């Protein structure tokens, strides 16, 4: 008999193999074939196959696609929450640090939808589960630069929660979205607004609020600048509702008198303030660290002109603002 630490002598290749070891080899071979055959068979007969076309798409183009989709989608209000109603059977979901653009949405049971999954920034994980049955869950990788189209059809009505399960930065754990699967009356759906174009109001600040400037278009800017000139105390909420989640400045544009102190108050988590442009001689530094709900910072604006600023992680979905000092 051979030790594993000495070189075997003689013709070890021709030595017989124990009968039970031979049987085990056979069993193992059959099992490996079964595993493979079952997997192949499931693509034909099974209902769960993560196969679908992938398209190369720039993050900018994807953002536009999702934007266009959202503008053409109607809305349904359920329990005080506005849900997107896909106009056709295409559902767009754009992942970003740290939210899901295109959600929440409402889908009909039994209907087959084409999910378009993509990312605006880094890699994310599209991890979906039925709230009533947590073991009904799947996870799909989402890559920037690619759009993955996957068909899905839901039989069980209920709430489906989406979390990110690929590490995407410090706010990773806060990334949550959802969609409802339920029947709804067409008459309860609010039709999309015909005019999807931005700005055109009294100021456009060089197109800062449109998708042509850095980041996405700012949805909650309707072209009007809130006039707070003369007020001695002005507050801007950071991370109020809007922009597909809690990523908006409210008001997005405000005009104040010289020497006014503006307080920025955080209403949700993971936001910062970065200054895009400010008048010559102005010294506003913004606030770079990420802060959470409850935080506030203030700045006294001495130099007149237009200050454009944004939230870095949510620039992609248009979390942008303006302070105009007159």
């Amino acid at each position: 008999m051979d030790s594993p630490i000495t070189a075997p002598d003689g013709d070890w290749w021709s030595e017989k193999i124990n009968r039970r070891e031979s049987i085990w080899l056979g069993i193992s071979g059959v099992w490996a074939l079964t595993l493979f055959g079952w997997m192949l068979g499931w693509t034909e007969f099974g209902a769960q196959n993560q196969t679908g076309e992938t398209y190369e798409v720039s993050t900018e183009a994807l953002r536009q696609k999702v934007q266009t989709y959202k503008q053409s989608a109607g809305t349904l209000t359920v329990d005080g929450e506005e849900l997107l109603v896909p106009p056709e059977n295409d559902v767009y979901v754009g992942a970003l640090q740290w939210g899901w653009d295109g959600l929440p949405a409402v889908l009909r049971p039994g209907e087959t939808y084409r999910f378009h999954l993509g990312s605006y920034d880094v890699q994310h994980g599209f991890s979906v589960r039925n709230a009533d049955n947590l073991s009904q869950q799947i996870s799909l990788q989402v890559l920037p630069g690619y759009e993955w189209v996957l068909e899905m059809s839901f039989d069980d009505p209920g709430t489906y929660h989406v979390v990110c399960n690929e590490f995407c930065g410090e706010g990773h754990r806060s990334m949550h979205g959802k969609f409802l699967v339920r029947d709804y009356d067409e008459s309860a759906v609010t039709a999309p607004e015909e005019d999807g174009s931005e700005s055109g109001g009294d100021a456009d600040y060089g197109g800062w609020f449109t998708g042509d400037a850095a980041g996405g278009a700012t949805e909650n800017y309707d072209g009007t600048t809130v006039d707070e000139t003369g007020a001695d105390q002005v507050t801007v909420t950071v991370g109020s509702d809007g922009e597909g989640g809690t990523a908006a400045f409210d008001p997005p544009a405000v005009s104040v008198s010289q020497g006014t102190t503006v307080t920025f108050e955080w209403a949700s988590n993971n936001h910062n303030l970065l200054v895009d442009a400010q008048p010559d001689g102005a010294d506003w530094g913004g606030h770079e660290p990420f802060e959470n709900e409850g935080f506030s910072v203030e700045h006294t604006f001495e130099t007149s002109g237009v200050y454009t600023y944004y939230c870095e992680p949510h620039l992609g979905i248009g979390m942008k603002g303006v302070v105009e000092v007159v």
Partner: protein
Amino acid sequence: MFGFSTYEYDDDGFRECNVTGLSIHESAEDMVKLYGLTAILALAIGGAFAVAVALTRWEAIGLLSAGDFYTYLSVHAWNLLIFWMVFMEIAILYVGGPFVLGRRLSLPRVAKVGWVVMAAGAVLVNAAILFTEYPNQAPLLTSYVPLPSSWQFYLGATVFVLGAIVAAVPFLATIWHHQQENPGKTLPLVTFGAFITSVVALEALLGGVITYVPTLLWRVGYFESLDPAFYRQMYWIIGHGSQQINLLAMITVWYFLTHVVGGAVVASQKVSRAAFVLYLFFINLGAAHHLMSDPVVSAGWRMWNTSYAAYGAVLASMIHAFAIPAGLEVGRRAKGKAGGLFGWLWSSPWDDPGFSATILSIILFGFLGGITGVMMGQMQLNMTWHNTLATVGHFHATVATGTTLAFMGLGYYVLRLVFGRDWSLGPIAKIQPYLYGGAMGLTVLMMMYTGILFGVPRRHPSVMDIPGTAFSFSPAKPFFAVFGVAALLAILGGALFVVVALASLLFGEPFEGAPVGDVQRAAADGGGRAGGEGKAAHAYSMRGTFVLCLVFLGAFVTLWALNWYLLSTIWQIGP
């Protein structure tokens, strides 16, 4: 080296080991000590960070903030999955090559250079992680582009990978010289296993160069961007390939330790070697299972690569799963240490930590790590495993339980046979493998339950409180309580190993030598080839092993069927 050793060398620098009968040269032994102790240092660092990671995921404690959690998790992952493993693997190559062949280590200076480069890389990676500053993020293990990590991190990773390649060269040179002097001679099985390990390792490390050099160039601004799909495919060559090194090194250690401590023989040279050759061709392709739930790669590509893994690597693992216990069964039957079906097992030296660690490693790796690995390697099932805590359970079953136990077992014998020190704190040494293996086993079961049954994601500092929503994974809470306690016990078990190792080095009695275990290792060796005197290995009964393997197959089929059942309850996905 280090002055801990109690052994003397002859004028040529050789000594004979009175347990294994191996002729060991100082040049190789020094390097085994150096690499082995460095590995244990990495184990201690990674284990210390595991405390904070486990206490954060156990949200009843919730120790760390999100930012700190990712930093600690990264240090934990790099030290345990990479540094503890790879330093130990280089030591295993030097045992499997020069030790077993009875040769000097060729190019000993290159081995020293390799250590310096690897150590520099490891220090740099750790420092880069700990000093990560925004906009850079903690790399975790994967550092997926385009989420940026610091360029120092990528530099450190590159340096470490290059160092490991350099450190493998003296092993390959030793084999080369041996074959030059002994043309046509078969390598011992353990050396053969180590050789295949080194080839698989070089493939993986080359993947590391392709991964980290472009990423480094991207971070210093030479490339404007990198394709994330390209990065993922290249990354997993090293990302999973490095874990295949663990697998092969571990299996080599299984053959080595069951023999040295339990008196195992080779059940069939042909079968065991064929299984290693299957690994050589197929195991690294198995890494494709990381892209099973990815866009970009086609269904055909994914199926093809999974079929490789199913045919090649799984088959090879199932062969070793039989061959190693069979070798033990035959060896012990031949030495009169067996009766009935499992007499060879009951009579084994279960109070020898080298033996118990090895057997626990085989069982836990197979049942917990191997089976789950095959599950998630099936394309459709992968959707339910991908990036859940169950995935983390899988690789804690393979690497943190299976491989780590095997390396601990080897560590116990490195203390005795290389440093010449018997174990201090003997009673602790005896229970340590059981404590560590049992607690780790429970920990990984909880990870798998929470991941599969509740869909709890990995890489989250908290899942019981998701900002901005009432939704949470709170039904999984009781499982996390068990997880938390088990994880702490496991870390305690790991710490006890480090304590025993250090105490033995510093205060251990000189090791008196053979016999170890309960059998004279060489007693029934030699003879028995067909036509020779004595009874050949294949002529002994392997019925105990066969029954054990059928139990394993039963568990395999049951878990596989359950996983497919769970998948079938999910809504329709795909055409």
